[in-house]
């Protein structure tokens, strides 16, 4: 479901392909509902080891994140700090991951590449950036930890399945049309870099 509340565009799980229509790179959205942390080894297990993901993330969100968790009595957990990790590490697996799981929202940090662009365009999903290093802000939007799966992977890599409320700001970096904000920015950044280097070179010819 998608709604606009107090000027905020909020996606609530389950999220359909239609809910993502009209969302473009650079937009800011917020998330309500089911979010599961999922990073390096979990992607590898699904795609390379062909193991079924123990949490159903269809029409829901995954977060490329390894949180700090405080264990509580009775197998309960407290979310202390949670923020995104570098999404590009999951690029190698993301096309197959989206195809096989039906996940709609991928939250992470930095850009992703052509595999994820393909997945977002063809399977209707988005990749968003949550401002990294802002892990306490994100943790305060986690209402509870529903379950913890694949705990053998240790604290950062466990699948922490969470219930979130207005998790954001989530800045859309790949949209359902496959547009990629980071790749578009990179072209500009590289042009500016070449210009900057031309200005630096004549001033650092210290070896004569």
């Amino acid at each position: 479901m998608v709604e606009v509340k107090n000027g905020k565009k909020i996606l609530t799980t389950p999220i359909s392909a239609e809910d993502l229509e009209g969302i473009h790179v650079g937009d800011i959205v917020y998330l309500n509902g089911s979010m599961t942390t999922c990073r390096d080894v979990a992607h590898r297990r699904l795609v390379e080891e062909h193991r079924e993901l123990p949490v159903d993330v269809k029409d829901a969100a995954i977060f490329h994140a390894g949180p700090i968790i405080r264990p509580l009595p009775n197998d309960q957990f407290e979310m202390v700090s949670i923020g995104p990790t570098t999404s590009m590490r999951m690029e190698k697996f993301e096309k197959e991951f989206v195809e096989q799981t039906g996940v709609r929202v991928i939250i992470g940090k930095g850009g992703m590449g052509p595999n994820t662009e393909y997945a977002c365009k063809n399977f209707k999903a988005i990749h968003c950036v949550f401002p990294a290093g802002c892990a306490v802000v994100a943790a305060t939007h986690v209402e509870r930890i529903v379950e913890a799966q694949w705990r053998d992977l240790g604290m950062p890599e466990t699948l922490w399945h969470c219930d979130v409320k207005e998790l954001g700001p989530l800045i859309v970096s790949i949209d359902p049309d496959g547009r990629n904000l980071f790749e578009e920015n990179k072209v500009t950044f590289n042009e500016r870099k070449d210009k900057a280097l031309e200005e630096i070179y004549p001033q650092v010819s210290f070896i004569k």
Partner: protein
Amino acid sequence: MQTTNQEHENQKAAGARKAKHEQSKIEGGHMMNREEQVEKLTTYIAHFTDYIGKHLPDDVRAKISELAEAETNPLAKSIYETMNLNQRLASELNRPSCQDTGVIQFWVKCGTKFPLIDDLEALLKEAVVRATVDAPLRHNSVETFDEYNTGKNVGKGTPTVFWDIVPNSDQCEIYVYMAGGGCTLPGKAMVLMPGAGYEGVAKFVLDVMTSYGLNACPPLLVGVGVATSVETAALLSKKALMRPIGSHNENERAAKMEALLEKGINDIGLGPQGMGGKASVMGVNIENTARHPSAIGVAVNVGCWSHRRGHIIFDKDLNYTITTHSEVSL
């Protein structure tokens, strides 16, 4: 602006000196024995490690505020606002401000006459175990080849301890550094042929900025090492990140290169999170040594905006001075 920062740093340093925490060697009416001294130093390091994961150093806070104020891009401004809110919440809720609390690194400059020099490496390890539970810190030590997480942030060779031995001193200076995976990934070193010159050094640094740098949580602090080989340059590039923002290399040309690189990288306009904005970096610090005539070793290490480093100096009686964070007692 850099002059102002330097003055600001000087004032902070003066404040820190005034706030030196005097701890008598005589406590509860008796001289501390060695075990008690080890326990005391362990507790201080554990608390300091915990503290720096929740509060940014003064120079980083000042620089981030300055960059946020100068920002005009609306998306970048809103990211700076979230960053600001996060640091406030981290302090109020007493939580690590970033979930990636790194593999803890200690840069130790220890006098040969510091009374606890023999105990230092073991007690730093113990301090990390304690901080892991107390802060809490994320479990970030994965044994290589066996590929399992120790769950304690210590393992073979972790925490990392770099030693500088200072002859005829009874003090011990320790930098505590928490670098997450994101700002560790761009790390790169190579040996250039002299024909590449300092032009090659500039290109090497800027190429890292537009590839891995933009994912490493800008605005970054960029550390550059210039020496002979990969390991000498790499070590210097990490050391450069310990220097305060706004400080300059004492060599005039190296300082000029710091300023040129800072302007050049800022002109790329990475912005916070690499999503575009006015600035890209908090600063560029270069550390250098002499080199072999046939080689220019160059390395880059970056610190993310959440540059969690702390600097503490102990005297022989374990009185301590903290230069990076004002108004803190352990």
